[in-house]
Every structure is written in C-alpha cells, then in structure tokens.
C-alpha cells in the first residue's frame, strides 16, 4: 500500500538480439505513424463541491456494470508531522481497522465478497483509497468511505499491530529488496530543506515514536471533507450518485481551522554532489543521478515526460540501446520524470553489468546526457516517443480505475481536473527543440545529486 512512485526497472529486459552473420533481406523499414492521428475523446465528468467542501467528480460510462471509487486526501509523506516520518503511510493502514460502526476488514468484505477489490496508496503528496465494485454496490462503498472519514476508531492494540505491519513492510521493501534503499537515499541527499527528503515510508525509529494521540490529531487535521476529493467512474447515474454522496458525506462537518500546508522552498542547488553508499543487498553496483525539476503544474512538465521516454522507457530508448544493448555496460538503465505537487526530480538509474566498473557506466551515461543537451532528437525518434506516450495515455483510459486515477492526479498534483483533456495535445506539441531546451535547463552538472551504490563486499575489500 506504499507507492514508491518509481517505475520498476523499465528497460531491464535482457533482449540480446540479432545474431551477427544472420542472413537478412537488405531493407527493413521501421514503421512510423503520426501520433497526431491518435485522437481521443475528452473525459466528460460532472464536477460539484458540497457545502462542507468535499469536491466530487463523476464520470458515467455504462459499458460494464461496475464502478471505480477513489477518495484522495491531500496529505502524503511531505506532510508527516516533525519527528514522525512515515506517519501518513502508517495512517493509511489504520483506515482499514474499522470504525465505531464497522469491524476491521469491512472494506475487504464489502468489495472482495461481491466480486470487487480495494486498496490504497500513499505518495509524497496524497493518500488515495480506492475500490472497484459491481455498480449495484456503489452506495454501500460511499457509506463506508463516509463512515471512515467521519469516525475513525483506533485503539492501542490495533495501532501497535499495524505499526508492526508497516515496519515489516519497511524491512521487506526497503531493507531486504535489492536496491530498495536507493530511492530513499536519493530523496534524502537531493533535498536540503524540503520535506520530500524524508520519503514516504519513513524510518522505523520515528514510526516507533508515534502514539495514539498522533493518530487522533492527524485524522482531525487532514481527514476532513474540504481536504478530500471523491471521484467515481463507471456505471452510474450522476444525479442519483450526487444524491447518495450528499446523503452520506453531506452531514460531515468541516473544522474552521485551515488545513496546514508545506511552504518549504528548496533552494537552487549550486554544485554537483556525489554520495557513496554500500549495502548488503546490492548484487551489482548502481548509480542514480537526480536533477531538480519544477512542479507537475509547470509548463515544462510535458517536455520532461517526453525526455523521460526518449532517454529511458523501453528497449528502443537511448539508454537501453546504448548502455545495455550496444556497449553492454549495464543490465538496466532507465529515466524517470518524477513530477510532484512541489518541485520533483528527474532521475536516471543505471545498474552495472557484471564485471563492469561503475565509472565506465557513468561515463557512458554522461555521454548520453551530453548528447541530448547538444542537439535536438530527429523527427523519427520524436515521432516514436510521442506515439509511445500517446498510446499509453489511451491505454490507461480503458478501465474505470484508470480514468478515476488520472482525474485524482490532475486535481491534487496540478490543481485542475480539466488538465486531463489537454495532456495529449501538450505531448504532441513538444518539439525537438523543447526536449533539448529542458535537457539543457535541468540536466546541468550543478543541479545533479548522484548516489553511487556498491555491494557491501566491495567496502570490505577496500578496507582490507
């Protein structure tokens, strides 16, 4: 239930190809299409805000008799109380422990037992709870979501158990998982003052310091109608659904006090920084280089997404073809434009091939960064990247869950659900010069934080 917001090793597939000496017919054409030919109808949603401040977006789509319900709260890892890193995520777990009216696991019973499912994730900026159920069960889930917003009940016993579960999740995903700690280290070193430096999962020490009083205060501070967004997509009648929402969420009061917000501003980085770490669960040396980029709502966001795909998405990307396939310096190489509500990071990560020195892999990576800064991509490459992005936008709209999440992200991270209907056009408008411009603007040496990550055995060897 913890979202590290990092794609899992894209471009890591080990496709060694094309036997040399294989007899081929001489001419092979790479197919091309113009991404601008991919037209997609706008997402038509109804938008209403209740008097208590709850914003509600409804998307009717009656193809399949099910609905996706998302309730997003504008509170994430960056909003963790001081000395309580990991708290927003721990709190997400507690929202499944029942209320004064319901037993623990009520959400599971109301979904799984009728052919649906439910889950939640916590990111740096939001905590999002979601369910997919047959549409005749919509009102039952709206009731249950209103119920846990209105009256969470947590006692010492289930608080302690769930805290152990979250620490177990930390042990499993961060400590035991190979490279599990690397993202945490990158966030910690790349940010000097912004709370993004604490990550989402937090630290076991600070989780252990949390008390039941913290839970009560956190619920009162952030779990309120005017800090929530409800999105429902699927087989629904908008007026009937608005009536249900008013019935169950309408009476929940909103406190007078404003919701506290993070106002920290990360100062510009002025010199390149490199940090070296060793850990036991690092099979092969790796490096992650992170560059500061603007917030998700910035006008450069689309060009940064294009840059991400061009450099590091899939087997046709520059980093994969150069570092993994041609030079065989890396087992995986990918890029990630991690756009957030506040200024995020553009990260490139390379994991060495066996027997390769990290310095060699880093030099090859630096050459690719220099190349994308030096000249704009040609039209054929840009066309391929635009098509990849446009196709994935269209694909994600096939499910009610995909549509609902897109609206959640646009509203909470960029401030306006309507942005979803301009994204495709914004991607298509990105020119080769735009890509070069964002590369030169952000992928600068003095804006870079690098974390080199080595197997613990190499440290021992160096020491002896």
């Amino acid at each position, binding site marked *: 239930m913890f979202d590290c917001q990092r794609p899992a090793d894209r471009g890591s597939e080990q*496709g*060694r*190809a*094309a*036997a040399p000496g*294989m007899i*081929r*017919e001489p001419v*092979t054409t*790479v*197919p091309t*299409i*113009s*991404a601008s030919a*991919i*037209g*997609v*109808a706008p997402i038509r949603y109804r938008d209403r805000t209740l008097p208590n401040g709850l914003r509600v977006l409804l998307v009717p789509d009656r*193809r*399949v*008799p*099910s609905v996706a319900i998302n309730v997003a709260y504008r509170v994430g890892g960056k909003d963790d109380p001081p000395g309580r890193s990991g708290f927003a995520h721990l709190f997400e777990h507690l929202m499944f422990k029942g209320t004064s*009216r*319901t037993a623990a696991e009520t959400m599971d*019973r109301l979904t*799984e*037992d*009728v*052919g649906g499912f439910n889950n939640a994730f916590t990111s740096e900026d939001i905590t999002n709870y979601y369910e*997919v159920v*047959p*549409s*005749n*069960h919509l*009102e*039952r889930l709206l*009731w*249950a979501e209103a*119920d846990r917003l*209105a*009256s969470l009940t947590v006692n010492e016993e289930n608080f302690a158990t769930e805290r152990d579960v979250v620490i177990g999740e930390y042990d499993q995903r961060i400590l035991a998982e190979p490279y599990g700690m690397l993202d945490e280290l990158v966030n910690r070193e790349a940010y000097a003052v912004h709370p993004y430096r604490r990550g989402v999962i937090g630290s076991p020490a600070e989780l252990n310091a949390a008390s039941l009083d913290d839970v009560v205060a956190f619920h009162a501070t952030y779990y309120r109608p005017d800090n929530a967004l409800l999105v429902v997509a699927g*087989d629904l009648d908008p007026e009937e659904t608005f009536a249900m929402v008013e019935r*169950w969420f309408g*009476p*929940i009061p909103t406190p007078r006090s404003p919701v506290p917000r993070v106002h920290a501003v990360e100062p510009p980085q002025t010199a390149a920084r490199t940090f070296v770490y060793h850990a036991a669960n690092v099979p092969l040396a790796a490096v992650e280089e992170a560059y500061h980029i603007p917030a998700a709502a910035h006008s450069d966001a689309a060009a940064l997404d294009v840059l991400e795909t061009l450099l590091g998405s*899939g*087997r*046709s990307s520059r980093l994969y*073809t150069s570092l993994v396939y041609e030079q065989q310096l890396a087992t995986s190489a990918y890029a990630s434009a991690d756009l957030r509500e506040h200024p995020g990071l553009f990260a490139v990560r390379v994991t060495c091939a066996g027997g390769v020195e990290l310095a060699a892999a880093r030099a090859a990576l630096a050459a690719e960064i220099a190349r994308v800064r030096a000249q704009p991509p040609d039209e054929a490459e840009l066309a*391929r990247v635009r*098509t*990849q992005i*446009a*196709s994935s936008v*269209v*694909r994600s*709209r*096939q*499910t*009610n869950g995909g549509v609902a999440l897109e609206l959640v992200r646009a509203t909470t991270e960029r401030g306006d659900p309507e942005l979803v209907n301009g994204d495709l056009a914004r991607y298509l408008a990105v020119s080769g010069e735009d890509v070069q411009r964002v590369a030169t603007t952000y992928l600068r040496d003095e804006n870079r934080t690098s974390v080199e990550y080595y197997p613990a055995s190499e440290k021992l060897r160096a020491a002896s």
Partner: protein
Amino acid sequence: MNGGLSTLPAAGPPHDAVLPAPAERVLDNGLRVVAFSQRNLPLVAAQLVVGCGGAAEHEDEAGLSALVAALLTQGTAVRGATEIAVASDALGARIIAASGYDASVVTCAATTPAFPQALALLDEIVRRPAFAPREVERVRTKSITDLALTYANPNALARGVAHRIAYGGAPYGHPLAGTAATLETITRDRVAWFHERFYRPDDAVLVIGGDLETDDAFALAERVMGSWRAPETPVGERPHGTIPPPRAQVVIVDKPDAGRTALLAGRVTIERRSPEFYAATVATAVLSGYSGRLNQEVRVKRGLSYGAGAALAARRQPGTFFAMTLVDHARAAEATEVTLATIRSLADAPASDDDLVTRKATVTGAFFRAIETVDGIASVLGEHVVYDVPLGEMQEYAHRVLAVDAESVRAVAASRLVPETFAVLVGDASKFAADVERAHGAARIVEAQRLDLGSPTLGG
C-alpha cells in the same frame, strides 16, 4: 454527529451489461476471423490463436511449443530481436506470444491509426520467424534457468506433480515449460518443424476488435493475412489422450529445504464446453476467496495458513480442479484433513441459494473486470475459440453464472469434484509423512532431487 450513518445501505439488483456482438468469417486460406466493434476509445486489439499447443508435443520434447512461442518475437527473416522491439515501440504497440496446452496465442494491441502496421508486424512474426541458432540457444538457456527458479517453489512443484497424477502420460501430463532434460535435446530443426506443422491458417483463428467496424476488420485481416498459405499436409487430429480415471491417493515430495509445505488436493474434472462448467465454476467460488470455505476453515478458524483457495482449469479435454494452501510442515497432516473435508462439504453440507448470491458475484465481478479492455474481450473470445464454446456465450456469461442454483452446485460437486480426490504434499516429509499415512494408509514418497516431471510415473 451524522447519525444517519448507522445503517449500511442495501445493495440493489445487479445491473446488466451490453457486450459487443462478435461476427465471424472464414478467409479463402482457411483462416477463421472473429471480429467485434467497441468504439469508445481509439484502440484495437488482436489475438491470433493457433490450434495446437503443448498437448501436441511429444513427451520427450516437453517444452517445444513454449520454446517456439518464445522465439517468435526474437527475430524474423527481415528483423532481429531489437528491431522488432523498436518497430513495436514506434507503433506504440504490444506484441506477446505464448503457448498453452490447447493452443498457442500471439496478441497485439495498438491505437487505431497504428493498428494496421501492428497487425502486419504480428503477421511477420507468425509467418516468418528466423529461429536463428544463437537465439535458440539463448532462449533455451534462459528457459532452463527459469525452470530451476520455478521448481525451487514448492507450490509450482506441487502443481507439476498434480498434473502428472491427474493425466499420467496423456497430453496434459507433461510440464508445458518442459524439463531441463527435454529442453537440452530440442534442436533448432524441431523448433522449425513444430512451427511449420502447426502454425497454419487453416487451423488458426484471428480475433480482432475495438475501434473499427467488423467489416473493416475482415477486410484488414484479408489484406494482411490473406496471402498466408496452408501447407499441403492436412490438419491433423486434435491431440486426444486417454486420461486415467481419477483415483484417491497421496503423493509426498520430500523437500526438506522448503520453507513451508505446499498442499494441493484435487482431480481431473470436466471440459470447458460441458454444460456443467458454470455450476463447477460457482462450486469453486464457494471454496475460494477470503470468505470462501477453504480460507474460513484453514486460516480463519484454525490459523493453519495465510490463505487457501481453489481453481478450475478450462481445457478442451477435461481440465483440473485444484484446492491449494501453504502450511507449516508440522501441521501439514491436519491441513490435509481439513482441506479434503472442506472439498467434501460441497456435497455433504451444500451451499444454499442465499449463500450463492455473493459467491456468484465474485465470479461475475471478475468477468466484468476482465472485459473492461478490448484486449480482455479479445482474450475471452479467443478462449471460447480454443475450447470450442459458441462465441455467443460471452454475452450470456453473467446470466449463466447467475442461473446456477444450489442443487446444480451440489450435483456437480458430488459427481465431478468430490469423489476420488488425490493429495500432493511438497515439504519436509519427516515432519508430517507418518501422520498423513496414519490417516490415509501408505503414501508414495519421492525425494525432491529424484523427482522427474518428465516421466509419467514421476521417476524417483
């Protein structure tokens, strides 16, 4: 505050769905084309179903059909593996090939403007694979490595053993992925032979659907695949082995290094096109899921395991019914008794019509989620094709499930799921074998290192 929240509102009656109606046509070369139209998004999906898969390969060549499928995307007469990846990315397409027991399937999906070229790429992969010796070696090595990882997992090992117990030397008995020994012996020529013999238009079905009219789908299929010529040899008979009659027995695989014991109880049951398939599906759902009977008995009441469930495998010939769980070695004998008794409860203590309401909802809910995407619809139609089920049944699926009553669930369980169930345990036998034998009489015990899934009798 908000006193109105005191009552959980009731669910209304389930809503109906309007699914696209499939149409079909046969091209001159014998290729059967199934098309459907659903135009809400600019996406089209296709699925080429080739009528033979693992069931068609010989025991000694187990893994051949899987090797062929894995190699299709690794090079054609005009493109190497990377060039296929680049071409596919340039189209924003996804092309995947895989083999099952009853069929081999190549799928492709792309946006509407890219789809004709994506289908042409699929066609190139299917009709003109290179099977370059270097790629054959690479895929062979990777497959053997993957097998070692798979069989380190006691659950996977239990499934492999269960297939052998259920089918012996009949076509579904051998492992689809082969064994290290069979994979070593397969030559490039045999790969090419299997492809030439079984990948043919007169024994294949192309499903196309999404953002296009069905007539346009037929025209596109003709343009891209109409020139595919069938070989002179006639299409052979479908592989059809004699499946041994189910027999209650216990097989223990002694694997002292397993973390926990994998327990699997089950038997061969019915084929997908059997009229009883829907009742058997609902019976399986009675046992499955968190609130299903197996999890209630095994986890909730006794804490024997983190979870337990059952699955019904659809096949052209009778498929399997398996109940599975993972338990501490020391409690494996107890878990075996509980699991077998819970399966028997389908007949001894049948579910009522009221009990069935939520269990049937789990089946229809999963179905409706599966058909949210055009790939999902294509895949359901592809399965209907493989299992000789009339295509129109897709639209009736939910109704058929909802029409299942308590008596038909009890009846199919009593005749096809409960009698003569076997049990397989893979774990540290020293901790449970004596207890299991006390309850069931002598069990067959095989050491994990000596187990040979390539042998109908499991070696040892």
